[in-house]
């Protein structure tokens, strides 16, 4: 059974390792400051005892006042999973660091979010629209998209 690690278990370890990186700890998710997302993700991927080496999915949600990017990562050995979140508070050019360097599977998914939600992933090797064409007006999955 995949055990979703409750945020509490992870938080204390993360807090000692990265002081100030945790913005908020939900019931089953950890909200990380977007500039320290990469470091936290790398730690969770490689550190002994965690080894979250499998990225289930990435998605993004538009909450009007901020964009939230959601990552679920799983450890195949210990069969546990955790949800990471990062936020971007601007609407003009929201930016989140790219995790393609850690998980190659993030490539297409980040491009998809860039295409449909308009979130730029810094450090992505090939960030361009994936489903729609160059010059499509707007980002369809945003809540204020008008056809």
């Amino acid at each position: 059974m995949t055990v979703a690690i409750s945020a509490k278990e992870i938080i204390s370890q993360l807090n000692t390792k990265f002081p100030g990186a945790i913005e908020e700890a939900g019931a089953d998710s950890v909200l990380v400051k977007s500039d320290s997302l990469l470091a936290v993700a790398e730690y969770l991927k490689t550190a002994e005892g965690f080894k979250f080496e499998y990225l289930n999915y990435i998605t993004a949600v538009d909450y009007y006042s901020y964009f939230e990017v959601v990552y679920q990562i799983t450890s195949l050995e210990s069969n546990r999973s955790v949800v990471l979140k990062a936020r971007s508070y601007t609407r003009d050019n929201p930016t989140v660091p790219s995790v393609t360097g850690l998980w190659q599977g993030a490539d297409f998914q980040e491009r998809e979010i860039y295409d449909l939600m308009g979130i730029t992933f810094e450090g992505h090797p090939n960030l361009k629209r994936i489903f729609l064409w160059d010059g499509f007006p707007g980002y369809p999955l945003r809540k204020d998209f008008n056809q």
Partner: protein
Amino acid sequence: MEISSDKDYIYTSSELDYQEGQLIEEVKASSRESIQDPDAWLDEELKRNILLTSVDWVLDWARRSSLWTAICFPACCAFEFIAAEGPRFDMSRFGMEILRASPRQADLMITAGTLTWKMAPNVRRIYNQMPDPKWVIAMGACGISGGIFRSSYNVVPGYNKIVPVDVYVPGCPPRPEALIYAVQMLQKKIAKAKVVPDLSELPNPLRKGKK
């Protein structure tokens, strides 16, 4: 002559993407109106003499009895089309079976699936590449009007915005029987086509400038 080594004649992929985007916008802008059904002539009074009618009959018989299909399978309906070709329904009983990967060898396009704006220029290109005479069957609700996806931002509301359609098959997806029936309808339609042109409509080489 020396061939320059820098390959500026090869487009980079971003340039190709840009060109594709331009093409899509062009097609999108020019496809606001539906293309008229090309079968207005069906009701016309047939004014042909006996000899030509018989020639017509022979040519039409040849045309309708071996329809070759171009591959244009964007989405779900394709599976019902394959089922219609497959072992149980076996469409080849009706003189219609061969799938052609190249549109240049085909004379029928069965548009099995949703058409998106990104795909629209390609479908039009396939249609233009098919040699005359050619026919189109719009399969499924998506092919007719956009169907369940009509309100989406990327779906063309019906193939008749892009290519002229001869026969529409409703259903989401249509059952293979419905598709076979549509092919038979198309065959009936082809049987009525006037192949040999009316002599009075031909340009007369003796009287230049006039018909």
